[in-house]
């Protein structure tokens, strides 16, 4: 879902950069207040794992593929939507600058779509669904799916505003492909949460309740 430079006019791309920078500032404020020093190695390992798994495109039907984004997982594990923003901003920075994956002028849009939307939908989706159904892993699956799907819907709207995609067609196609790719996001988010909760239940901000 990495938007390349050509897809959004420069002026609009700057607007997304401004929005992204506001959330990056809020994410840094979250880190200063809530990310304890003991979390530093965990955040680094999580980001490295998310980067690696983003390189693993999994085939879906219709000659298409998709990969995990990981903002929901980071937000759930570290207990804040801003953790998703923090990790994805750095992942997208390296992907864009070193690997040409995702544009430079449009990096703000990619940070908003994947980091901000992924982090917020992932975190609040998880906490709300977990409260209702009581199962942390089912909640992580649904929140992971929703985080990816809604990121894709917002991306389609941005590209319609940009004049690159017609709105209805863009929403249909982005929605269809990412409804399937969301299953990858949800599945890996739930499995990774289970593994982390089994190995180190103490590092989760919101206990997943492995023993239950």
């Amino acid at each position, binding site marked *: *879902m990495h*938007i390349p*430079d*050509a*897809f*959004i006019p*420069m002026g609009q791309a700057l607007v997304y950069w401004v929005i992204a920078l506001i959330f990056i500032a809020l994410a840094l404020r979250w*880190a*200063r*207040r*809530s*990310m*304890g*020093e*003991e*979390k*530093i*190695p*965990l*955040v*680094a*390992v999580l*980001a*490295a*794992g*998310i*980067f*690696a798994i983003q*390189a*693993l*495109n*999994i*085939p*879906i039907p*219709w*000659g298409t*593929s*998709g990969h995990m984004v990981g903002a929901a997982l980071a937000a759930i594990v570290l207990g804040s939507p801003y953790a998703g923003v*923090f990790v994805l901003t*750095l992942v997208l920075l*390296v*992907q*864009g600058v*070193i*690997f*040409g*994956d995702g*544009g*430079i002028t449009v990096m703000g849009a990619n940070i908003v779509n994947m980091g901000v939307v992924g982090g917020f939908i992932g975190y609040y989706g998880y906490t709300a669904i977990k409260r209702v159904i009581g199962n942390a892993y089912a909640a992580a699956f649904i929140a992971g799916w929703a985080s990816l799907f809604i990121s*894709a819907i917002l*991306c389609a709207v941005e590209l319609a505003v*940009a*004049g*690159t995609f017609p709105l209805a067609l863009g929403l249909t*196609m*982005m929605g269809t*492909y990412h409804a399937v*790719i969301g299953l990858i996001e949800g599945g890996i988010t739930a499995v990774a949460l289970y593994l982390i909760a089994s*190995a*180190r239940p103490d590092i989760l901000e919101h206990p997943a309740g492995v023993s239950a």
Partner: protein
Amino acid sequence: METKQFVVIGIAIALAIAVAAPFLASGNPDGLESAFFSIYEAKPFMGSELDEDAAGAAEEQAVAATGNDFSYEALMPDYSIPGMDKAGEVLAVVIGTLLMLALVFAVARVSARPDN
């Protein structure tokens, strides 16, 4: 599990994925590229045949539509090392994974809440 052990296992998993990814990853266009190619008639929405010529033309049409012709030569474009084949892809993803580890560690270190 000790923090040290957790971190070592975590890094090992990340590196294992990084090494395997170039061999396992699908080369198909991702969801956004697929939607883009379909809209610009280089690929059917629910089919898999990609018309390479039409795909190239689509990219030019996008630049013409948005006027954003910013271009940038990345060091390791598309997770590959120019002049190297599969080994270059493995190296690229492994370097990226280690770079992520170092960068995020450094940024987190600077921005984390100090525990006095």
